[in-house]
């Protein structure tokens, strides 16, 4: 992998150690992650291309990553299908959405 500040993929790490490698453009749908990875910020996340999200569990982060890909896939589409969210996750996802600013 080349320079982590410009590489096409970034790594998201949950608090319990799960790692998700997703396209940078998808991850940057989240305002929080976008600011973390902004090369101008000189944050360690920006330098390493690796974001540790301390308050998201692996289960929630998996769903968040699924959402990132869903948004990335449908952002130019006219009829966006609904995304299924399991009932037990929806409150935690709402908190995650608030934290991730998306």
């Amino acid at each position: 992998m080349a320079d982590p500040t410009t590489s096409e993929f970034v790594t998201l790490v949950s608090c319990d150690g799960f790692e998700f490698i997703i396209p940078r453009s998808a991850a940057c749908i989240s305002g929080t992650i976008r600011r973390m990875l902004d090369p101008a910020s000189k944050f360690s996340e920006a330098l390493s291309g690796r974001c540790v999200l301390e308050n998201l569990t692996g289960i929630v982060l998996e769903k968040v990553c699924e959402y990132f890909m869903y948004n990335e896939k449908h952002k130019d589409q006219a009829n966006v299908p609904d995304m299924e969210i399991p009932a037990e996750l929806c409150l935690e996802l709402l908190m995650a959405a608030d934290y991730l600013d998306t």
Partner: protein
Amino acid sequence: MDNEVPLPPPRRIRHRSPSRLSPAGSVASSFRKSRRLSRFDDRSSQPSSDPALFSSDDIPASGLENYHAPVAGAGRKRRYRGTWWGEQVADPKRKRADFKEKRHVDSGVWMGSDESIAESSLPSEDASNWGEDLLKTVLDPRAPSKVANAPSLVKPSDIASVPVQPRPVVLQGPVETEEHKYAKAVINECLEKGDDSVDLGEIFDLKDLKVLSLRNNKLTRIPEAIRKLTALQVLNVSMNRLHELPWDLLWLLQQGELKHFTAHPNPFPSIDESGPVEWHCQFDKSNDEDKDGEIDEADAPEVTPVPIFSDYEGTPPNDAWTPIHVATGPVTRLDMEGRPLEPNTPFNTPSTSSQPASRAPSLREVSLRAISKLPGIDQLTDLELDEFPALVIPLISLARQARQDGAQHCSICQREFIVPRARWTEWWDCTPHENGMKRPRGSGEMLRPLPFKRVGCSWACVPGGQFVE
């Protein structure tokens, strides 16, 4: 027998008020000048009230002389709407002698606005027919009564004097279902508490409702859930405190059954009071000395908006009945929590430019849709809500409201959504619906646009967005 008292006209002949019979052109033109200067652009020939209701004895068995005669199940009086002096015989062949036999002098008059009569003489047995009569006379004054399944009618009406709290008169069908009882209880409760707005949510579950009169209440808004009343044919929201109408109402006018819609009087703002707008129809500014000819929408902003609407000279879009889009107000974009963005924030600030307008819902929106489908979310009390993290309380209460009132629909892409992302006002002229589809819009007729509030589910769902309608 020639000295006989003039009788009310025969049954099944519906009446119109004399003002409608007068040649519309001359009266309209003589009134036009003065009315144009009036702030309330209200055509007085369209009464806001529900038409009066009369009854008569034209069934032989129900007459005075036949008081003791056996009634063969047809004891109910005929009722019809309109003026008692109204136009006489529509069918010239039908002379008075034809019905002299079956008509007696006694003729009851039933005024719909009189509360005491409403309660005493309208037991639930007849109430459904009352709605039926209203429906068919309002929709088509001459149509014979063929409505098989009478709709129920819910009418919170007021007694004459203004300061008195509106009292509900709820008329229900022959069998009072649980739904009806519930709706009645809701109206009673809301009106007795004196709230400015009635929680109409449960009424909107009555999917077969055809006539709804909310006249003379203190409603400040009509919920979007009115969209659920797809069978609605007559709606009266006059004499309320409405400043705007939900877009879903226009949807009912365009796609639904709604044929007779009374909106005035209400304190609707005029277009020029509402900031810059984009005009959508051509105007003949013949009353403007310095401008003549037609000005299309691109030029319109240069013209000082006049507080009146010039004559619409173009061809109406489909036919002379459909609502016409007159103008569009400015769009307010809302952030992901539904709060308005700072008005001076340009749309493409550096923080948002990497996020072009997208139709994909935000993660907040996606999770709120899931939350609003949770069982029991509508039973959540405010106390329980406080136990949630403070950041998400406003969002969850939005989801709860969406569950209680039914989700809002994006007015561009028709999707259900929880958090609105854009809102704006559009002015549409619905004149033919206001006169009950009795006559089409004439060319050169003054437009009376009504403000409809539209909401979009994403920043792409705005007027002039990438996928308009």
